[in-house]
């Protein structure tokens, strides 16, 4: 589905991503991991077309990134979703409407999207009255209202209390089982080890690229060598 070839990205002549190569197949649940500042969020922004001045190529189903984004929809849940202007009253249905066609909040789509994330009947609630975990589910519902082919999430559990993180990942696993292709930047890969089909560890370049079992062996060897 996604083929990234020789992707390099620089900010102010400093290399943030260096010669990144990987592929993600349709139906994959890919986890992008790496230490802080390793370029994970930058990589996602390249995949979403928000960082346009990169070198190399990103192809979706054989199409260039620009052509794909014109044709298909990519659901995006950002890390900063929890940092929107909380003081402004916004209802849940207004948020989800921004994910609907022509930004028009079709009631059926909104109800369906909220049902998928377990928030039935929350349409009229003020977003700021919800817990961090519920708010993040609203943002996922917004992404789902787009009927995306691919869902990309950037550290979605930042700011959510630990008790709710597991609940959140259960939702991710359910969406994956329903056939959604997911790319997730997270530090909590261990919570979804049974579901993740691909792990891409980056630290400017790709440090590891394989399935979860291979990653576990790689990680164990890596730790034994004392190279952490």
């Amino acid at each position, binding site marked *: 589905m996604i083929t990234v070839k020789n992707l390099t990205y620089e900010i102010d002549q400093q290399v943030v991503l260096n010669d990144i190569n990987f592929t993600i197949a349709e139906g994959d649940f890919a986890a992008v991991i790496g230490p802080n500042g390793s370029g994970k969020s930058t990589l996602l922004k390249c995949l979403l077309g928000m960082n346009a001045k990169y070198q190399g190529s990103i192809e979706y189903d054989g199409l260039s990134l620009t052509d794909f984004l014109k044709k298909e929809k990519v659901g995006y849940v950002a890390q*900063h979703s929890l940092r929107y202007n909380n003081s402004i009253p916004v209802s849940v249905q207004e948020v989800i409407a*921004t994910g609907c066609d022509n930004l028009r909040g079709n009631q059926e789509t909104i109800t369906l999207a909220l049902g998928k994330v377990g928030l039935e009947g929350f349409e009229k609630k003020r977003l700021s009255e919800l817990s961090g975990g519920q708010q993040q589910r609203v943002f996922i519902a917004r992404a789902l209202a*787009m009927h995306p082919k691919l869902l990309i999430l950037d550290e979605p559990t930042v700011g959510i209390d630990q008790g709710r993180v597991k609940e959140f990942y259960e939702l991710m696993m359910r969406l994956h089982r329903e056939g959604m292709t997911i790319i997730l930047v997270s530090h909590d890969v261990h919570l979804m080890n049974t579901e993740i089909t691909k792990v891409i560890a980056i630290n400017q370049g790709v440090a590891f690229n394989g399935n979860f079992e291979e990653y576990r062996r790689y990680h164990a060897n890596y730790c034994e060598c004392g190279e952490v």
Partner: protein
Amino acid sequence: MWQNLFQYEFLQNAYLSGILVGFIAPLLGVFIVSKRLALIPDALSHVSLSGVAIATFLISIGILPAAFNPMLLGIVFSVIGAIVLWQLTRQFHNVQEIGIAIVMSLSLGISVIFIALAKGVNLDLTSYLFGSINTISRQDLWIVAILALSTIIFVRLQYRKLFAIVFDEDFIRVRNLRINLVNGTFFVFVGLVVAVSMKIVGVLLISALMTLPVAIAIRLAKSFKQTIVYAVISGEIGVITGLISSYYLNLPSGGTIVVTLVLLLLGVFVWTKMKKIKQKRLTD
């Protein structure tokens, strides 16, 4: 007062223009405050004043005719300032507050210099700083009316995009929707509204008319649409009550409008607090 209102054209101009600005300033203010750009109207009113000061100077040295209305250059400056500030907020997201402060100080500096240089031309600075609603002509009223109508049509047609932009601009960019034109046009409208409101509430108080009604609405509303409705209602209450009290108390209208809005905000604040305490007691 009502008899005078029907009798004197200047009072009609004052009240009608006040009511129109009381509608459109909070309408745009909701989007400005949501974008965390509450300083923008303040900066633009200063930019507008620098246009008025330069026009006055140009009149004093004979480049512009004596009959030229300095407000026109004020409007041009405000629109240019709005476009500059729009670019500034786009390109330098992290330092936009400093950028706005620089534009504001620079404009005020330019205003002071050109007002001092414009010898022989009488510029009533106080009326620009604090507003002089009684000097509004029928022509001014028509300008405000056309602007009000265009602003309402623009917001009505582009509401969904404007909301999506202020709520989460990154998400809209990922959706591949074109937003630059809407965003830019919005800033131009803000520039125009600030410039034409200068005579009504004055440079120093225009941002209050754009932000105070929003501060009131935020405490009451449950959705963005409700915030807009409550902000406009609060704006109108502030303008109409402020104008009536300014008439009876013989005080400057700009000041009475702003004080009315602050009193309304305090009232709403106390009422919502009491409501919360009552609810808590009931649940306990």
